[in-house]
Each structure stands twice: as C-alpha cells, then as structure tokens.
C-alpha cells in the first residue's frame, strides 16, 4: 500500500508538484538518516549525507523505475553517497595536516559515558563496533539488521551476488562477535541506579 502511495507521490512530483516530494522526504527521512548515521558515525555528517541523497533522488526522479521500491532506491543512493564520503574522508585522513577525527562519542549527539544511559552506552558501542568494519561489510550489516533486507535484496541493491552478501555478513558477524568478546556488553544493574 505504501509502495503504491509512493508511486503516486513520485508521479505528482514528476508532474511538477515539488511539495509532493516533501511527503516522500517525511516518510523516509528516518531510513535515509539512519543508514547514513550507521555508515558515517557522525550525526551532523549523516544529516548532510541524507539530505544530499534526497536532493539526488529528486534530481534523478525521472530515472526512477516505479516497478522498484522507492525506499530501496533511496537507500541505494544514500549508501553510494556514504561510500563516496568515506573514501574522501580516508583520503583526507591520509593528509598529515588534517587533525584526527574526533571520537564518535564526541561527534554524536549521544551523551558521554558519564551521563549515558544503558541504551546509549550500547548505542555508542554498536557504532564503535560498526566503525571498525570495512564500509562494504558495514553496509551489509546495516541493510540486514536495520532494514530487514533479504540476501537477494541486498545483492540487488549492491549489484553483487547473494553468495557475496552472505560471505560479507559472515565475516562481519565474526568480526563483531570478536569485538564483543573483548568488550562485553554493558549490563543493567538496578542496584547501581540512584547510587
């Protein structure tokens, strides 16, 4: 039903109604932002990337195949843009004149360890773990866990094979499990609350 509605909003946008695109932005802002945030690990940069993805989607809307899901198409644009940003960031980091990137906990809006709640500690931890994966592995994990995409859907989106996706997820999970082994999950202790 949502997919059908998406086509209507796309058609209205293509007919010249710019505000119709606003409906698609509101509907998928969270999806685009979350993907960018998981990939880039910086809220400000993630908002810029998600915004850029929407602008690119709008500029190329006449190339959108309405037989496909708009959400998948948008996520594809967002992931490509994030991969580009990560490549540029890597090049920038190679320059000795550039300062080192700040710690994720400092660049995100998530509170620091002292005042963090348990969920935020876990959130920071997840981001730190994802950040240690290569972008390709990270993307596969994000699409699988936050968007519940099947191997086939991920393969189609990343223009690769299902076995390649399976392999990436296998290695990514192994790497994440290894990280978790050396850095156990913060556990909730009610006795500590209020102390």
């Amino acid at each position, binding site marked *: 039903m949502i997919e059908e509605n998406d086509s209507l909003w796309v058609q209205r946008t*293509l007919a010249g109604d710019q505000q119709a*695109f606003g409906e698609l932005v509101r509907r998928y802002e969270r999806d685009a932002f*979350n993907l960018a945030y998981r990939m880039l690990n910086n809220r400000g940069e993630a*908002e810029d990337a998600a*915004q850029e993805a929407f602008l690119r989607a709008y500029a190329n809307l006449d190339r959108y195949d309405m037989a496909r899901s708009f959400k998948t198409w948008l996520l594809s644009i967002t992931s490509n843009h994030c991969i580009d940003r990560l490549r540029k960031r890597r090049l920038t980091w190679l320059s000795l004149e550039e300062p080192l990137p700040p710690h994720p906990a400092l660049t995100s809006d998530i509170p620091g360890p002292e005042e963090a709640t348990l969920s935020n500690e*876990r959130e920071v931890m997840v981001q730190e773990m994802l950040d240690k994966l290569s972008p390709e592995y990270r993307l596969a*994990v994000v699409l699988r866990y936050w968007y519940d995409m099947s191997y086939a859907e991920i393969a189609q989106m990343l223009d690769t094979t299902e076995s390649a996706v399976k392999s990436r997820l296998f290695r990514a*999970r192994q790497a994440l*499990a290894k990280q978790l082994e050396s850095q156990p999950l913060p556990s909730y202790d009610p006795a500590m609350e209020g102390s």
Partner: protein
Amino acid sequence: MSEGKYLQNMHSALDHDLSEEEQAALHAHLEKSSEAAQESDRLHQTDELLRSTPQAAPSPGFADRVMAALAALPLPDFMNRQLSVGLALGLATAAILMVPLLSVALILLLSVITDPGALNAVLQTLIDAMSYLIGIGADFVRELRSFVSGNPLVLVLLSAVIPVTVFWGWLVRHLWGRSGPVMNRQR
C-alpha cells in the same frame, strides 16, 4: 561435518535458514563442544545487540531543511523539459487562437469606424484571403462579417477578443510564473 560447516550453520541459524535436520545436528554439536557453544553464544549476543538497536532519527525539522535546500536548487531536468514543452505548446496554442481572431477584430473595427460600403470590396478581399488561410475559420469569419452591417458589432468584437486575450495573458503569466523562479535560483 567440519567445524567450518558448523560455524556456517551457526550463522544460518541466526537467519532462520536451517532445516530441522541441520538444526538438530547443530544443537547436538553445541552440546558436545563447549568451544562451539561459546562461539554460538557470542554470535547470538552480537545478533541480539544489533537487532535491539533502534533506528537513529534525524534532528527535528530535518525534512523542512531538505525541502528548503531543494527549493534553493535549480529545477531538475525533468521539470525544465516539462516547462519548455509547456511553454512551446502554450505559445503555439495562443498564436493559433489569436491570428484569426485578431484578423476578425481588425476587420470588424475597420467596418465600424469607416464606411462599410466603401471598404466592402477591400474587406471582401481580405476576408477571402483569410478564409483561404484559416480554412474552417472562414465560415466563422463570414458569419461575423454578416454582423458588420448589424447593430451590436462592438459587443460581438469584445466578447470574442476579451476571453481569448485573458486566456492568452493567463497562459503566459502561468508559464512565466513557473519558469521565472528557475532563473532566480540559478543566479
């Protein structure tokens, strides 16, 4: 079954992608091997951690900022193409509508202002020429010309020209109003 295969099946189990037989075989292996059981626990813990982490949300007003950024950009190609085609069609339609009606208007005005009798031959020639050019419109022209000798000529003239002029003006303004911002945005 090799350890590697069991490890693969641990991952497949997370995706609920194992047959009952494979599940049973994996379960039996985990009961026998504490090392494999620990590995499985770590994978399950990782899986649970990822599944329980909610989507991150952008800051409030994000969609509005996207729309503002979008409005500040030049219109995409599909919009410009649409405007170009619309403008061309609009102008062509307006021109086609205006040529015969302006001709009729001119003839009617001349007929009213001057002596219809003296100009009759000239007007007849002009009307014939116009009727030759505009085909079907010629019948309409003759009908109108027959009203020249009648009484409410000015009213007929106005009722014919004003709606078309208003329509033409609206068309130009409508198209200009949409293409105008394009120029502003590109500056």
